[in-house]
């Protein structure tokens, strides 16, 4: 009898533990977990500034009440960041079609700020036709990088070939500095509807 009761209790405790650890069996990976957390609890991110490809300084959250759509790249990335750049251009076009472009800022932030100087940022922007207004490319202060990546849940590791492996996503930052959504860079439908929801009528 003792064993039966103990077995049932163990089973229940196990299910409860795994349920809570996986957000109701929805998030088995850290990437999924951070996306769920952003959608559910909109955690605050510390304000940060970047030096843009024009040499100006841009602050997030935006002071003009715009929603910021932020992604993290490094300019010498041969693969993911190039397709992410192409997606960002298409996202900008989509936001214009949706009549949201004047209420949103798109920002690609380099996590390799010592290498990615202003000319290299500008070159990346030129290659992907970033206009510097709706969409710009920037780099943070090297000292602020670790905290910034931690706030956004971005993991960057050496790829063993001189490059960097990293998770790629578009992060929606509200005008009051909260991380309200994390999306695949080509999931335009979800990004547009979350942006519209955040901006309100």
């Amino acid at each position, binding site marked *: 009898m003792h064993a039966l009761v*103990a077995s049932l209790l*163990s089973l229940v*405790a196990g299910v409860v533990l*795994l349920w809570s650890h*996986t957000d109701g069996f929805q998030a*088995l*990976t*850290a990437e999924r*977990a951070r996306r769920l957390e952003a959608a559910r609890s909109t955690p605050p991110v510390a304000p940060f500034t970047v030096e843009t490809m024009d040499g100006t300084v841009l602050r997030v959250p935006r002071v003009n009440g715009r929603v910021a759509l932020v992604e993290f790249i490094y300019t010498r990335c041969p693969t993911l960041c190039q397709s992410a750049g192409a997606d960002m251009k298409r996202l900008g076009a989509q936001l214009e079609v949706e009549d949201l472009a004047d209420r949103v800022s798109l920002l690609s932030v380099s996590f390799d700020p010592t290498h990615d100087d202003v000319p290299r940022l500008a070159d990346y922007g030129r290659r992907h036709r970033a206009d510097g207004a709706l969409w710009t490319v920037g780099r943070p202060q090297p000292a602020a990088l670790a905290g910034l990546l931690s706030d956004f849940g971005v993991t960057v590791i050496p790829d063993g070939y001189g490059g960097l*492996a990293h998770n790629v996503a578009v992060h929606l930052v509200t005008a009051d500095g909260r991380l309200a959504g994390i999306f695949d860079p080509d999931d335009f439908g979800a990004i547009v509807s979350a942006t519209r929801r955040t901006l309100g009528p």
Partner: protein
Amino acid sequence: MNPGIPAASLIVLACAAGNRWLVADPVLHVLLQLPLLGASGCLLVPQQRVVAGWRWAAGGVAPLSLALTGVAFWMLPRSIDGAVNNGMMSLVKFVSLPVIGALITVCWRRGHALLLAFVKAQVVSMAGFMAFLFTHSPVRLCNSYLIDDQWRLGVAFLWLGVALAGYWALGLFRVPAPIQSELH
């Protein structure tokens, strides 16, 4: 004093001292450090005459459920990522795995032969599943590890499954011949 404490402490201390090096490689992290920590817990289980008196563990189902919960927890990519990037999760790793190892030992000592055979079959098939998952996933399941490392982990799981299946299959050839009177 429990005679296993010195050896168990040594294993845990070695795992802690080499933690940075071990977690840098997913194969060493998942298939060396985690089992070593589990093994340290095996050494802490009291003698058989003590364990035989634990009524809650009769049949082995209760310790098995708890151990499987722990194993399932540490098979999740987010737990592995957490143990690499988060100090609290790393601490949970060092505390929970010895407990899991101890529970498996208790289960092994008190479990019915049928239950143990079921567990063995599950372990082999789960190793195969993990091997398939890590070698075939087109995306990185852990943000802390490269896709090539993930593939190596999958191959290591495959070898683990093959080795365990082989080891347990060998046991079939060691079964003594049945006594004639039991056949009739």
